[in-house]
């Protein structure tokens, strides 16, 4: 079986070589492909399946990066590139547990008030300078410096004191125990020797031509076109097998998919229709591996709890019973997703699988609404109470097709139980400034990203309801406040799990959000890349171990 596939691949390469030799192949390979003769030799000789240093991967991205110091950027493209160039003291491993990177080990002392990091001694910056605790201290100071235009200072403003007693020890002290602290040191560490004398980091050479400690070195950034990285042969976790990363910016999803099919892109995220309908053909599956796993985000219908319509818990529960979530997953995501029941990612330790579920049951929904006093007294098909009809507007932002489709489906479900719904779609900036910030909405469809850190204080705590704060639905529950407070002050994982499980029980019971669904990430990667192992963290966590067998190398000049 395996040999058969190998032979077929060899044939494919042979075919490629012929195509190239006749001059109508892909332009990107024209110059970089080996002369046809060599290809034939390799194709005939069988071997060359072992891990091998070589080749390049072309990654497709919708958006350009916005800068090369990811500590001050906030877009996902910059983060992707940052992950290759820089390292943190720690990171989340494939099972989303914290593991050391630049820190060899750490000790949590005094009940979480103090963390002592012991740094690796074998790390060098890309320019050859040794990495030491000076760099860590510098990065910390960089983050809290009010002149640094970063949105991510908050975790570091909790630090009371930070110091570096020797080149390989870094100590941070906190006012109060702060459980997200350890994970926050996944912060990209910046080179002190390159930034200490710059007045404005944004204009510094580091932001043009960065030096990191990471697995890949920066080569070039052609704005709106591509970012090129090359492997760091001296990387302290081992030299990556793939020599080059070419991050191509292709702002149109349809164009990117055509590029993928034509060989101009090796790795991209598919949309559900592409995954289900446009790639279910033998030709595609011969060349690409597709993966699907739950993504780090969920979509919800949030109610403005200041609005009298949604004050009664039974009403919110009724609206949750009124939806067939699986149907929404089917309709919006073509089945590529799961129901959301709590604000945590379903396959993580913090997710509580035992919370109250709201199965699709319109009769129960109607009964709950009747209990709450909502009846159709004038026979027009819409429930009313004290002369007010049960009708409201669902708002969402423009440009997110999944959300607007979801709104349409929700409308049809709610109308079945006599609740009238209008849909309004507004451009993002106006949506946030005019409606969310001013709490001038009835219900919204939005989503949250869910990182591996379970602290959701900013989203649920009753103190976070001010303008520009995240509890814009005005949710307030003293027990939830207490659990959130305890959760972020406790390092013990079992205890934390207890707090957050209870939190999820309460949220499921009270339904301040109608939790809708968790989408899936749907990457497609060219088949020549081996050793890709999907895990809760996705597929790129072991990128430095991906390789292309010698016989299948496409870009030989890199």
């Amino acid at each position, binding site marked *: 079986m395996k040999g058969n596939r190998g032979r077929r691949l060899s044939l494919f390469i042979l075919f490629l070589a012929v*195509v190239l030799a006749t001059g109508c*192949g*892909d*332009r*990107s390979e*024209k*110059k*970089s492909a080996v002369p046809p003769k060599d290809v034939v030799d390799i194709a005939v000789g069988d071997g060359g399946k072992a891990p091998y240093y070589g080749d*390049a991967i072309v990654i497709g991205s919708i958006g350009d990066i*916005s*800068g*090369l110091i990811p500590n001050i950027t*906030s877009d996902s493209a910059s983060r992707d590139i940052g992950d290759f160039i820089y390292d943190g003291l720690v990171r989340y491993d494939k099972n989303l547990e914290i593991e050391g990177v630049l820190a060899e080990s750490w000790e949590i002392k005094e009940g979480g008030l103090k963390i002592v990091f012991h740094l690796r001694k074998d790390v060098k910056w890309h320019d050859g300078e040794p990495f030491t605790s000076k760099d860590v201290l510098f990065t910390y100071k960089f983050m809290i410096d*009010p*002149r*640094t*235009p*970063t*949105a*991510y*200072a*908050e975790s570091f*403003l909790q630090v009371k004191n930070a110091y570096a007693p020797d080149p390989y020890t870094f100590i941070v002290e906190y006012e109060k125990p702060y459980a997200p602290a350890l994970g926050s040191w996944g912060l990209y560490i910046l080179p002190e020797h390159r930034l200490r004398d710059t007045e*404005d980091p*944004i*204009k510094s050479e580091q*932001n043009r031509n960065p030096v990191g400690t990471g697995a890949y070195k920066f080569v070039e950034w*052609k*704005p*709106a*076109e*591509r970012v090129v990285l090359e492997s760091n042969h001296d990387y302290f976790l081992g030299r990556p097998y793939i020599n080059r990363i070419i991050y191509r*910016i*292709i*702002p*149109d999803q*349809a*164009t990117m998919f*055509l*590029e993928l*099919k*034509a060989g*101009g892109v090796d790795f991209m995220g598919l949309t559900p229709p592409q995954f289900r309908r446009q790639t279910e053909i033998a030709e595609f599956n011969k060349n690409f591996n597709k993966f699907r796993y739950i993504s780090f985000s969920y979509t919800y219908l949030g109610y403005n709890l200041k609005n009298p319509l949604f004050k009664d818990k039974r009403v919110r529960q009724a609206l949750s019973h009124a939806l067939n979530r699986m149907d929404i997953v089917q309709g919006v995501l073509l089945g590529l997703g799961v129901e959301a029941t709590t604000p945590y990612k379903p396959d993580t330790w913090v997710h509580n699988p035992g919370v109250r579920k709201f199965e699709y049951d319109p009769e129960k929904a109607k009964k709950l609404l009747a209990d709450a006093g909502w009846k159709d007294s004038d026979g027009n098909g819409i429930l009313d109470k004290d002369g007010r009809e049960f009708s409201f507007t669902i708002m969402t932002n423009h440009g997110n097709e999944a959300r607007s489709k979801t709104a349409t489906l929700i409308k049809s479900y709610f109308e079945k139980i006599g609740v009238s719904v209008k849909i309004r779609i507004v*451009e*993002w*900036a*106006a949506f*946030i*400034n*005019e409606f*969310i910030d001013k709490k001038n909405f009835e219900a919204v469809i939005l989503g949250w*990203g869910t990182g591996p850190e379970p602290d*959701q204080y900013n*989203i649920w705590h009753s103190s976070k309801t*001010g303008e*520009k*704060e*995240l509890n814009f639905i005005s949710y307030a529950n003293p027990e939830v406040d207490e659990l959130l407070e305890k959760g972020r002050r406790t390092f013990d994982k079992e205890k934390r799990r207890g707090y957050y499980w209870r939190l999820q029980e309460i949220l499921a019971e009270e339904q301040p959000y109608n939790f809708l669904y968790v989408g899936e990430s749907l990457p497609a990667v060219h088949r020549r890349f081996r050793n890709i192992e999907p895990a809760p963290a996705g597929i790129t966590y072991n990128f430095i171990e991906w390789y292309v067998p010698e016989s299948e190398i496409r*870009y030989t*000049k890199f």
Partner: protein
Amino acid sequence: MGKYLAKRLLLMIPLLLGITIITFSVIHLAPGSPTDLVTDLNPQAGAEARERLIAYYGLDKPLHVQYVNWLKRLATLDFGQSFQPDGKPVIEKIKERIPITIEINVLSMIVIISIAIPLGVISAVKKDSFLDKGTTVFVFVGFATPTFWLALLCMILFGVKLGWLPISGINSLDYDRLSLFGKIVDRGRHLIMPVILGAFGGLAGLSRYMRSNMLEVVRQEYIQTARAKGISEKRVIFKHAMRNALLPVITILGLSVPTLIGGSVIFETIFAIPGMGRLFYQGVMSRDYPVVLGILFIGAVLTLIGNLLADVGYALADPRIREGEG
């Protein structure tokens, strides 16, 4: 002529000032601020982060102060620094994007002119013939076809099925290692689709314009005189009629100077071309005021210069206007 030019140039100053005031107010009237994309609904960004960013960009000052500061810098031709985290000067960002934009627009323009003018002349000469009706249908189909859709079809055919042309981008991954000739070929292969498709949509305007000009000129008495003198029809059309019919085209060309630097967002997005259209769009979406204002200002200047050039060119080409002036 010199006095006329000086007058026109002086008049441009208040006009430009007016334009800057309007563009500055309009962009600040749009809801949202440059910090929103970074801090809005971002669980990790606190209120402190917002204030920090607003102060960094100088947005905490009153609007008129911001305007005066911007104008002062503009007077020294400093367009300021982009609000993106790459923090590049606006002028540098524009410089990165402008060559490819001009390249594509000039090529498209050449294609349009070299097809539309003969097409217009032929339709006028053979008015109401099958050829005339055929070209009419052709150019209007081009005008009406959604180019993004046509572009996708062409990409599927020439890029995926036949593999003749690259699908997107402006050069290959190994462009930097190619010889000069190789570079030209590579760039050419990348630009064929965007240029031709871009021109396809623009044929209608110019060819129709040319046709109606031509029809008007042919009706003139001096053409009749020329024919009466027994000059060959070819000579009448190309020497006498066409030269006059071409005059108004100069105006069109003058007016299209600013469009040379303004790329089409849709086209650039579909073909992944790093041009001005995307820079501007991105600037508007992220409320990157310096970039947006910089591009609008340059566009305004070019429009005014284009108008001036059109007028001057017209005067130079048409003796009647030139002498009427004197």
